[in-house]
């Protein structure tokens, strides 16, 4: 069974006549999983280490880019959100329009927890994530009663319900339309202040401690996603995406795997939402609004669904355009319109997003091996 679904794209018929070559290739790849994991970890750590410096402080490059450190932190937070979202959309094939509920819900839970219980950052993240997981369980249980498009509509509807609850009936808890303002963020483990600059020379790379805090979660999120996707569990997710009926027939409890994928994705959104609260020390009501769900959809699809790094790329592009390009006098006012057009073109012509374009381009340069051979696993 697991062999059957191990590499769905390769089994679609295209290279079936090659017979044994496919098996050899598959075993070779399985043997290198551990090495790949190390490679992904090192790549991720190096990337998040040089990113803020390159983006905000490096000579020439940062002048051209016009980036700033706060934005680098924000990008990593959204990247965690996007990786989790892609677990659901790209790998299980479920399009949720309700992820604002987990992002915003966790942000509120984290904020309220910080004000009422404890201002320890790790506990804040734990509280927000716990809320997101529990809520994802309930919402997934309800929404997964109908598949396909209805799932999208229902997640959208139930997330909107949470938005309206926060805006009015629960205003005594959430502070209604003004957003939650009394966020308290204390020192990490009681000693490390997140808003302090790191000691020289680390401050050149990382700036504030907050960035290290967020970056740690981002790297962990990426590795967790990689681990899950390359486990038998993740293989089942892909099997469901490729052919739900067939997965059902080989005896898998599809509904349970879908729910787990949804909850897992909600957990990532929860971590990201909690970090967002710690980063901004404020929870706007809009964080629950469905446009927020739309943004994560755009980011993920733009960057490339079904790949590990694609969504991260999408986040960087989107937030960069939103925060930097929107300031340009010429095209600034039209940034949302332009992104909308690019988004439609990507959906219609390049379903694998910017990352897919890069992969295809690389494959053409390298020759021979097409990106499809990877089964979209990277």
């Amino acid at each position: 069974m697991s062999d059957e679904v191990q590499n769905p794209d390769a089994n679609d018929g295209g290279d079936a006549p090659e017979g044994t070559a496919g098996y050899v290739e598959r075993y070779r790849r399985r043997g290198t999983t551990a090495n790949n994991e190390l490679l992904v970890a090192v790549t991720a750590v190096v990337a998040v280490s040089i990113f803020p410096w390159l983006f905000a402080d490096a000579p020439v490059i940062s002048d051209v880019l016009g980036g700033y450190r706060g934005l680098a932190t924000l990008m990593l937070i959204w990247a965690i959100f996007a990786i989790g979202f892609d677990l659901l959309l790209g790998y299980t094939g479920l399009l949720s329009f309700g992820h604002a509920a987990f992002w915003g819900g966790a942000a509120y839970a984290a904020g309220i927890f910080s004000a009422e219980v404890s201002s320890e950052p790790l506990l804040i993240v734990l509280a927000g994530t716990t809320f997101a997981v529990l809520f994802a369980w309930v919402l997934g249980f309800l929404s997964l009663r109908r598949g396909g498009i209805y799932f999208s509509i229902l997640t959208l509807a139930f997330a909107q319900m949470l938005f309206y609850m926060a805006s009015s009936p629960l205003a005594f808890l959430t502070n209604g339309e003004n957003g939650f303002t009394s966020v308290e963020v204390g020192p990490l483990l009681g000693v490390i202040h997140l808003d302090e600059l790191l000691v020289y020379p680390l401050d050149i790379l990382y700036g504030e401690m907050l960035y290290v805090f967020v970056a740690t979660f981002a790297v962990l999120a990426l590795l967790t996603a990689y681990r899950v996707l390359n486990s038998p569990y993740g293989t089942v997710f892909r099997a469901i995406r490729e052919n739900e009926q067939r997965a059902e027939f080989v005896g898998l409890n599809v509904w349970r795997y879908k729910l787990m994928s949804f909850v897992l994705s909600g957990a990532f959104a929860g971590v990201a939402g909690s970090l967002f609260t710690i980063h901004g020390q404020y929870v706007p009501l809009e964080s629950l609004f469905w446009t927020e769900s739309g943004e994560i959809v755009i980011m993920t699809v733009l960057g490339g669904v079904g790949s590990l790094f694609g969504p991260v790329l999408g986040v960087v592009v989107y937030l960069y355009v939103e925060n930097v390009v929107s300031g340009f006098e010429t095209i600034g006012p039209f940034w949302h319109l332009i992104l909308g057009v690019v988004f439609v073109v990507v959906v219609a012509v390049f379903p694998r997003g910017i990352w897919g374009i890069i992969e295809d381009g690389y494959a053409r340069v390298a020759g021979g091996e097409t990106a499809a051979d990877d089964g979209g696993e990277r």
Partner: protein
Amino acid sequence: MSLAADLLRVFLNGLQTGAIYILVAIGLSIILGTLRFVNFAHGALYLIGAYAGLLITLEVNLSNGLLREWGFETIGLGWGFLPALIIVPLFVFVIGLAMERFVARPFYDRPDTDQILVTFGLAIIAQELFRVLFGGQSINFARPGWASGPVSLPIIGNFPKWRLYVIIITGILVAIVWLLVEYTDFGLIVRAGTRDPEMVELLGIKLTRPYIVMFGIGAALAGVAGVVGAPLENVNPNIGTGVLVPAFLVVVIGGVGSIRGAVVGGVLLGMVFSVLVGAPLPSIDILGTQITWSAWAQVGIYALAAVVLLVRPEGLFGEEVTG
């Protein structure tokens, strides 16, 4: 004021709120039922209808619009709203045809998620276009002179005239669509296409044309909803998405592809909303905070959808669980 008057007023308000939902939801439901196409840009059609109606009403106006520039002063067209009510549906109908041909048709064979994504992108483009063209601020869409002010009804007393017109216009339009689908050959083909498109094609009937017309009709209804709904609120680029989510709920509650379902679902949602907003219920006390029922109005319609879904996942008038 008597209790009967209160209840009747709540009932009429619910009917009016539901009427807008119905107009948007019918098109959504039929397109989903027959063409199996999810149109997240359906709210954008409402938006286009609202702005187009606003512009026509402003331009076809003897005190300062285009007609005056062209020298018309005595034509007696004091009500620019009526032309809007006729031109806008035709305009949005054409947009609907174009959408079917150039957006929906290439996406029929692609996964549901792709359909949702591309129409969602189109909705964003429409919204942003209007923001760029007319600014993000809210514009007041004045009710036409002949329909502003209150009307005196028995028992209730004064009731806003425009709300009554919205109910009447919706009633007429729904009746027309109902007759069209139930009692004409066109309707027969469309309904048969919903059941078994392959068999219909085997009988030698091409479904392409009925489908594209149905898409146009659905779009036109959303356009009308924009024209009649906009004078109840202010027009801004976000109203399209604001009406899309309740309309989807109506489809889910009523059952996909069913006109009856859309009507019942729309009325139900409207009633829940209106009862929570307007019914003379005492406020409740939670943790020392007074919470009025009206605060729950928006939440109520989603709760209703959740309950219906748990009891009858296929919707009240839905026939089968698909997808």
